[in-house]
């Protein structure tokens, strides 16, 4: 037994030791025999262009490798890692696509893709510019040097800190070159090893710095870049969209046909119409026929558009009611069954009376242009009962007292008495009108609104680029803007601030010329004025709108061809019929157009501000004022000329189109203006029409404020239209149609906010760059420097060991 005997334990131990010795010796022998393989890896040395090229090639390879991985299940771990980057980029493109879908203008859509692209570019460029380049400059090597390892995978040389293929790939000369750059003493033992260790240290520190900074750098720089890019792309993209809309005009019909095929859009209306006609064909007149049809026949848009809410074809329920009464059978319905039910218990005579009553009620409803449904008839009949003593006393008539029949009797009345054939014909007419006219108009409207929304976007983008220059051309500095923005009485301070600027500009010949030229250049640049655009061979937004509206209008006019003569006749006199004859009416078009062309006139109004101010200074304004006052019969009080001037400024600068027509023009519009108006222009109460004329004379017909939209309204607007504008002008002018002053106010806000945002995040970006660059100065302390020796000395760089000085 060997167990537990100390002697034996020793024997076992000896055997074990001999075995160990054997293994050890074998190992050492093998070590001598086996030599290291020559590494198959190599450095990737490329200039930036080659790098870009190979990144594209690599992406292609990744795609191929991904295909192989998915089909055959073969890929290296490095490849699997790269697939994630590939997926991230594809996902980024998909997200940009999704977000672009929810953006209104072409510029904003494009910005989504630019944003995604910039984000990935920043991610790639940030380490290159802020880490690789400074490290190369300071220490003589690129910490993200690419290598192809012996496995054939391309990777960053120092990515895996504990596995550095580059150590075997770099030649002695390469390493020594870096060592020279780093200033490592030539007489250091194991100089190359030390240099490699130092490179590893720096590369690791760089990688860590990269991870710390990338999260701040990528979003911040992306926002900064996109902020600038969006500004630069505004006008070109808007012009592109404009061109697209213009080019698309001939295809409107096809687009409308396509929209008609959109089952989703017409689903609700289709089912309403089919319910109504089915019911009519079954001989039952549906309750509230007119109201139901009016909803389904509504030619206001089915598509919600944020900026255009005016319906171009207003067709109210009265019109549909007329239509309904014209298609419904005109012969006297048979009320026998109803009368039986109503008065049957009281004998033949009572039934006869009841029948007569309803027949009379029917006649009176038809003459009175009322609906002939059972409830209306009962209402009329009730009135007749009340005015007839004999009827009032009969028992059955008491059931009419409430103006409504008991439900069981009423049920008989619904659909009673109409000629079934006539009802079928009515149903056919409804189908015909809906299919041949209403549906196409709804489709045209939705297409039209889609295009108008695009034009609105174009206006908006151009607007933004014009007002910016307007603020610049008036000589506003950053301080002015901050002062105005932070003032407590923004409106007045802004007015005074702009007054001062405009006056100063108008006084100084040079400044005046410069500002006018700047505004001219803006107009040229964005193609706002007609002359400028004609030179460039482009159309203005307004011109494109006119063509678009004309095309759609003529298509709608053509729809009547699809109707039978009889049906066409039954539509006569209604708004719908009018629309079919005339297309979009002029003022319907104008109200849609106002928000679009207001931008076109914006720069002109800015110029007008300066021209007006200049005219006030050289006296020509006063002459004009005297002339207008003479014509309108005002006596000008010389003391208040300054006040009049100021008021004119307010009107010219501060009022929107609607204001000029309403706020200053309508009597009873606040005592203040009334008093000012009466004082200034010596009007008696009720004579404010003169004031209106005066405002028009100065601001529209005069040369100070050339304003096509205002001119249009002055020429075409009857009082009723002026009032219509008053109702909706807030909504209409909320975004675009604002005054020069309003535009400047917005711009002051915008510029201030931009600057503020830029200050904070631009500052953050600058700070990040600073910290990233400076921290690299302190990199490269080798923690195990105490292990290296300079020839003939004990130690090397005491202060370097473990980072202790």
């Amino acid at each position, binding site marked *: 037994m060997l167990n537990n005997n100390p002697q034996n334990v020793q024997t076992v131990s000896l055997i074990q030791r001999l075995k160990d010795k054997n293994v050890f010796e074998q190992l050492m022998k093998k070590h001598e025999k086996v030599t290291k393989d020559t590494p198959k890896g190599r450095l990737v040395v490329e200039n930036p262009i080659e790098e870009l090229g190979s990144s594209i090639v690599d992406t292609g390879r990744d795609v191929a490798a991904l295909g192989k*991985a998915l089909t055959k299940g073969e890929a290296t771990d490095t490849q699997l890692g790269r697939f994630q980057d590939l997926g991230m980029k594809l996902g980024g493109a998909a997200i940009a696509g999704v977000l672009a879908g929810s953006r209104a203008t072409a510029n904003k859509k494009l910005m989504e893709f630019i944003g995604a692209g910039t984000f990935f570019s920043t991610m790639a460029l940030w380490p290159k510019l802020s880490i690789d380049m400074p490290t190369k400059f300071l220490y003589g090597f690129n910490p993200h040097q690419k290598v192809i390892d012996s496995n054939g995978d391309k990777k960053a040389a120092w990515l895996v800190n504990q596995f550095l293929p580059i150590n075997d790939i770099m030649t002695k000369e390469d390493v020594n070159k870096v060592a020279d750059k780093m200033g490592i003493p030539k007489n250091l033992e194991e100089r190359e090893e030390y240099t490699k260790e130092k490179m590893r240290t720096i590369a690791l520190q760089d990688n860590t710095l990269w991870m710390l900074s990338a999260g701040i750098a990528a979003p911040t720089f992306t926002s900064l870049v996109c902020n600038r890019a969006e500004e630069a792309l505004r006008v070109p993209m808007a012009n592109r969209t404009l061109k697209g809309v213009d080019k698309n005009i001939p295809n409107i019909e096809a687009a409308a046909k396509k929209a008609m095929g959109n089952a989703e859009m017409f689903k609700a209306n289709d089912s309403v119409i089919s319910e109504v006609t089915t019911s009519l064909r079954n001989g039952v007149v549906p309750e509230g026929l007119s109201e139901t049809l009016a909803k389904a026949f509504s030619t206001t848009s089915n598509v919600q558009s944020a900026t255009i809410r005016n319906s171009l074809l207003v067709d109210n329920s009265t019109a549909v009611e007329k239509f309904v009464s014209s298609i419904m059978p005109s012969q006297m319905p048979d009320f026998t069954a109803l009368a039986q039910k109503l008065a049957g218990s009281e004998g033949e005579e009572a039934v006869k009376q009841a029948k007569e009553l309803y027949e009379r009620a029917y006649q009176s409803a038809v003459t009175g242009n009322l609906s002939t449904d059972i409830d209306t008839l009962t209402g009329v009949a009730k009135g007749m009962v009340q005015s007839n003593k004999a009827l009032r006393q009969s028992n059955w008539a008491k059931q009419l007292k409430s103006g409504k029949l008991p439900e069981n009797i009423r049920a008989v009345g619904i659909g009673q008495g109409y000629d079934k054939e006539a009802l079928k014909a009515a149903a056919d007419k409804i189908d015909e009108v809906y299919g041949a006219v209403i549906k196409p108009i709804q489709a045209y409207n939705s297409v039209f609104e889609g295009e108008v929304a695009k034009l609105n976007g174009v206006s908006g983008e151009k607007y933004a680029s014009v007002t910016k220059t307007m603020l610049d051309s008036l000589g506003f500095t950053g301080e002015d803007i901050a002062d105005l923005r932070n003032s407590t009485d923004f409106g007045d301070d802004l007015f005074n601030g702009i007054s001062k600027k405009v006056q100063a500009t108008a006084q100084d010949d040079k400044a005046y010329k410069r500002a006018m030229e700047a505004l001219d250049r803006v107009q040229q640049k964005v193609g706002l004025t007609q002359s400028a655009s004609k030179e460039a061979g482009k159309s203005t937004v307004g011109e494109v709108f006119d063509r678009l509206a004309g095309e759609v209008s003529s298509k709608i006019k053509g729809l009547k061809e699809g109707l039978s003569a009889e049906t066409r006749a039954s539509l006569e006199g209604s708004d719908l019929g009018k629309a079919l004859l005339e297309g979009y009416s002029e003022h319907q078009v104008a109200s849609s157009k106002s928000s679009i062309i207001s931008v076109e006139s914006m720069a002109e109004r800015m110029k007008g501000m300066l021209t007006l101010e200049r005219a006030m200074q050289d006296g020509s304004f006063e002459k004009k004022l005297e002339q207008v006052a003479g014509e309108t019969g005002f006596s000008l009080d010389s003391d208040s000329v300054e006040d009049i001037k100021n008021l004119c400024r307010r009107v010219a600068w501060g009022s929107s189109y609607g204001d000029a027509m309403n706020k200053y023009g309508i009597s009873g519009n606040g005592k203040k203006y009334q008093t000012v108006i009466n004082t200034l222009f010596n009007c008696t109460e009720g004579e404010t029409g003169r004031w209106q004329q005066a405002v028009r004379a100065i601001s529209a017909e005069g040369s100070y404020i050339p304003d096509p939209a205002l001119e249009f309204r002055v020429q075409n607007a009857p009082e009723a239209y002026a009032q219509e504008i008053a109702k909706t002008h807030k909504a209409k002018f909320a975004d675009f149609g604002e005054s020069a002053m309003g535009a400047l106010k917005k711009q002051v806000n915008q510029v201030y906010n931009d600057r503020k945002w830029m200050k*904070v995040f631009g500052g953050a970006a600058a700070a990040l760059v600073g910290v990233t660059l400076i921290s690299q100065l302190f990199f490269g302390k080798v923690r195990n420097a105490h292990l290296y020796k300079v020839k003939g000395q004990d130690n090397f760089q005491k202060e370097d060991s473990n980072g202790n000085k």
Partner: protein
Amino acid sequence: MPLDKSTLSNIPNNTYLILPKGRDSEDHIIKKRFDTGFRIMADKCVKIPSYTKEGMEGSRNFNFQKFLTLGMIPNFIGSAMLITISNALNGSFGGKDSFFAAKNGRKMAAGVILYALGKWIGNKIINKGVEATTGIDLDMPYKKIIHELPDGKDNKAKTSIEFHKVFESSAFPRWDLINKKGEENGNRYEYYDKLAKRMGYKEELNAPDQVVQPKVREVIVKATAAKSLSPFIWAAVGCGIAAQEPVGGFMKFRNRVTFGEAAKALPGEILRVGKESVKSFAKTKTGKVLMVGAVLSSVLGIANSVSGFKADKPLKSTIDDTRAHQEF
């Protein structure tokens, strides 16, 4: 000192690392509970500062796992930064500008969160799907014990712990740990037997590891490849939902009277906005395409990953003598 290897006595004493005995002295698979993934994540987050320190010092103990952990920083900071950039200054823009900026800010914030959520869901679905069909848990965690090197003059070697996944590498899955776990249960081939059964082998195989291992590798590669596509479509769905109008109208937390009230109203608000946004996104064409695409990518991803897994015909395997012994 050059080593004199001629005599045994010259082998220096105590050159072997003495390790404490016990389970935690070597790598081992840990049992998965419902919160294991969360705890591993938390462990990583907690360790980020010390990893950062090591990285900034250029420590030689800084391994790739630590680098990957630091790789989470750009995700966290970048997400926070995106939210900050589009939200921090909105209050100071004034009036209507503030209102619209805040609307977009909320969408951006929701986009960042839903992007992450979408990616997580996309990954989870494939992992769960693969596990349900093959029995391979691609997330199977193990605890890695690392005996670090002394670094710097006065630095002592220490032992650190990391959490990895057994199948995180397709080239080198940790078969050794699987074998070890089997041995602890008395059957070294326990895991392979289980998988072989799932593959369709009715009888126990002689060398199940030889049959199972290449199949598992294939599943890992295919699933990882699928996971580099599908989750990003899910993320795009998340971003699309976040871009919908209802998100812009999400309640202002500070507008509530008390914090408690606000916190109480929050889940309902999230549910309402979430529901409305999903509905509104589903109405758009892109929304439909993406939602269907996301589901389809998951289904196809799983189907493709497991497509080669089933045994061609349930045969009893023999030991392949030509292949070298492959254990680690």
